[in-house]
C-alpha cells in the first residue's frame, strides 16, 4: 500500500501547508482578473478577465509539458534540462532540498507561472486580439517565465551567484513588469489613448480583486519556504506588514497630490506592498518589512504618475506595480537582510556589502532579459498575425468582438435562436391553427 503512506523524506505538516498554499496562489489569478476587469471600460470587462482565464489554461499546460523542466531540471547556468519534460520523474518522492512531494512542488510552481503570465496581459488589454494573446501567453510562459524562474529558483546563474529571491521578485515581478513595458510598446496604444479619458468602470471590482490577491499572497509568500517552517512564518507575517505600510504611505501621497485618498490608489498600494515583500519575505525582519512597505510606495507611485503622461499605453501599470516594486524589494534584501532572521545571509547594513552586489546584478539582468525576449517574441508573433484588430473593433469593444458576449447584458430585444431555426420558424412549423 505504498500510495497510502508518504514517501520517505516527505513531511506531512509541510505537505499539508503546501497543498493549501498552492490553492491560495491559484486563487490569485481570478482575483487578478477581477482587479484588471474593474480597471478597464465596461465593453472590455470579459475580455480582460478572460486573458487571466487563458493563462489558467495555456500557462498550466505549457509549464507541465516543457516549462517546469526548463526551470527546475538540473542547475544549468542559463536554462534547465529536459529531464522533467512531460513531468517525467515528477512523483511522490520529495523534491531535492524540500520535504514535500515533487509533484506538489511542481503544482505550487505552476501557479506562479499562471499568475505571472496573466499579469503581463495588463499591458495589452482593451486592444490585443484574443487568439494572438493565447499564442503569446503559451510561448511567454516557456521562453520568458521558465528561464527567469530557473535563474532565480532553479539553480541558474543568479541563484548560484548568491542572489536572494524568496518568492519571485525576479521571475514574477520584474519578469512581468518589464515584459509588460515591451508588450505595450510592440502592441501600441489604444486608439483613444491620450485623446479621451479612459476610466476604470468598476472600482469595487478593483478593491475586491486587490483584497483577494492579498489573501492569496499569503500562500504565495508563505508557501515559498516550502513547508510549515520559520522562513514561511516570517514571509507570511511580512506579507501582512508590508502592504499595510504601503497603504499608509500611499494615502499620504494621495493627500499631498490631490487632497483626497483614492480607493483605486489604495487597491494599487496593496499590490505594491505585496509585490515588494515577495522577494524579501523570508530574508528581512518584520521591522524592516514595515519600512520596505513605506519605501516601495514612493518609486511605484512616481512611475504611475509619470507613465500616464507619456505616450506609452502600459494600460494597467504592471511596470509600476510589479516591475518597480519587485525591483525595490530585490534591492532592499541586499541592504537589510539579516542572518539572525533568515539563516542565509546578511545585507549591507549588517556587514555584507557583497549581497547588495548580487542583488543589483539581478536588477540589471532580469529586466533586460524580460524586456528583450518579450519584445522579440511579440515582434515575431506579429509578423505572422495581426496583434490587434481594426479601430472599429476597439470601438465596439473586445467582449462582443472576441467573445460574442457582454458583461452587463440587457435582455431587451434579444431573440432566442434554436438550433433548428428562429422562434418564428418554429411557430410557423407548428401550424397556423395553434396560435
Amino acid at each position, binding site marked *: 500500500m505504498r500510495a497510502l503512506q508518504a514517501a520517505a523524506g516527505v513531511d506531512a505538516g509541510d505537505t499539508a501547508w503546501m497543498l493549501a498554499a498552492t490553492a491560495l496562489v491559484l486563487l490569485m489569478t481570478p482575483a487578478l482578473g477581477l482587479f484588471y476587469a474593474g480597471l478597464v471600460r465596461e465593453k472590455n470587462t470579459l475580455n480582460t478577465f478572460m486573458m487571466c482565464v487563458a493563462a489558467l489554461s495555456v500557462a498550466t499546460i505549457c509549464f507541465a509539458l516543457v516549462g517546469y523542466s526548463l526551470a527546475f531540471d538540473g542547475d544549468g547556468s542559463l536554462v534547465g534540462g529536459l529531464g522533467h519534460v512531460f513531468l517525467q520523474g515528477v512523483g511522490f518522492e520529495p523534491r531535492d532540498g524540500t520535504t514535500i512531494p515533487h509533484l506538489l512542488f511542481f503544482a505550487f510552481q505552476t501557479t506562479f507561472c499562471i499568475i505571472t503570465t496573466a499579469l503581463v496581459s495588463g499591458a495589452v488589454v482593451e486592444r490585443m486580439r484574443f487568439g494572438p494573446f493565447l499564442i503569446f501567453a503559451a510561448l511567454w510562459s516557456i521562453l520568458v517565465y521558465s528561464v527567469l524562474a530557473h535563474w532565480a529558483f532553479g539553480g541558474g546563474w543568479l541563484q548560484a551567484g548568491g542572489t536572494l529571491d524568496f518568492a519571485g521578485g525576479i521571475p514574477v515581478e520584474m519578469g512581468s513588469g518589464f515584459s509588460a513595458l515591451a508588450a505595450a510598446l510592440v502592441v501600441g496604444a489604444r486608439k483613444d489613448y491620450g485623446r479621451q479619458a479612459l476610466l476604470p468602470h468598476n472600482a469595487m471590482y478593483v478593491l475586491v480583486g486587490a483584497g483577494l490577491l492579498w489573501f492569496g499572497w499569503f500562500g504565495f509568500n508563505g508557501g515559498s519556504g516550502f513547508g510549515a517552517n520559520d522562513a514561511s512564518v516570517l514571509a507570511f507575517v511580512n506579507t501582512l506588514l508590508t502592504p499595510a505600510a504601503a497603504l499608509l504611505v500611499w494615502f499620504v501621497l494621495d493627500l499631498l497630490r490631490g487632497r483626497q485618498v483614492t480607493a483605486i490608489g489604495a487597491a494599487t498600494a496593496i499590490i505594491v506592498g505585496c509585490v515588494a515583500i515577495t522577494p524579501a519575505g523570508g530574508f528581512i525582519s518584520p521591522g524592516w518589512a514595515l519600512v520596505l512597505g513605506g519605501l516601495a510606495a514612493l518609486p511605484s507611485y512616481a512611475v504611475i504618475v509619470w507613465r500616464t503622461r507619456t505616450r506609452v499605453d502600459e494600460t494597467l501599470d504592471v511596470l509600476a506595480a510589479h516591475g518597480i516594486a519587485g525591483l525595490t524589494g530585490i534591492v532592499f534584501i541586499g541592504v537589510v537582510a539579516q542572518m539572525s532572521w533568515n539563516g542565509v545571509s546578511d545585507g549591507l547594513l549588517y556587514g555584507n556589502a557583497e549581497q547588495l552586489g548580487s542583488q543589483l546584478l539581478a536588477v540589471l539582468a532580469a529586466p533586460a532579459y524580460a524586456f528583450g525576449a518579450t519584445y522579440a517574441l511579440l515582434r515575431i508573433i506579429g509578423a505572422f498575425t495581426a496583434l490587434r484588430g481594426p479601430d*472599429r473593433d476597439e*470601438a465596439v469593444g473586445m467582449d*462582443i468582438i472576441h467573445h*460574442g458576449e*457582454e458583461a452587463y447584458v440587457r435582455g*431587451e*430585444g434579444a431573440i432566442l*435562436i434554436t438550433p433548428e431555426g428562429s422562434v418564428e420558424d418554429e411557430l410557423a412549423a407548428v401550424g397556423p391553427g395553434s396560435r
Partner: protein
Amino acid sequence: MKLVIAVVRPDKANDVLEALYRAEVRGLSLSRVQGHGGELERVETYRGATVKMGLTDKVRFEIAVSDEFVEPTIDALCEGGQTGEVGDGKIFVVALERVVRIRTGERDHGAVTPVGS
C-alpha cells in the same frame, strides 16, 4: 426654438461633446438608450443559448437651441458622430413650443441661451 435630438454611437459620444463645445453649444442632456436602426444584428451565445441581439447601445443627446444655433448644432453632431458605417445614428429636429428656466422663470429665448453668453 428647436429641440435637437440625436442618437449616436456610445464610443462617439465624447467626440460629439467635443464638437458641441467647440460650436459653443453648451446646454444639453445625455442619456444611454438602446435602439434599432439598419445595422446588422449581433449574434451572442450564453451557455449554449444563441441569441440575436436586436437592440444596440446608443447615446441620445437632447439639445434645446434658439433658431440661429440649429445648423451649428447639427453640423457639430455630424462631425463628431460620423464613422461612415451603418449605425452612426440620426438627428431629429422638432419645434419647441415653450422653454422655461426654473431658477429665474425666464421664458423661451432667454431660457435656451446658456448662462454667461
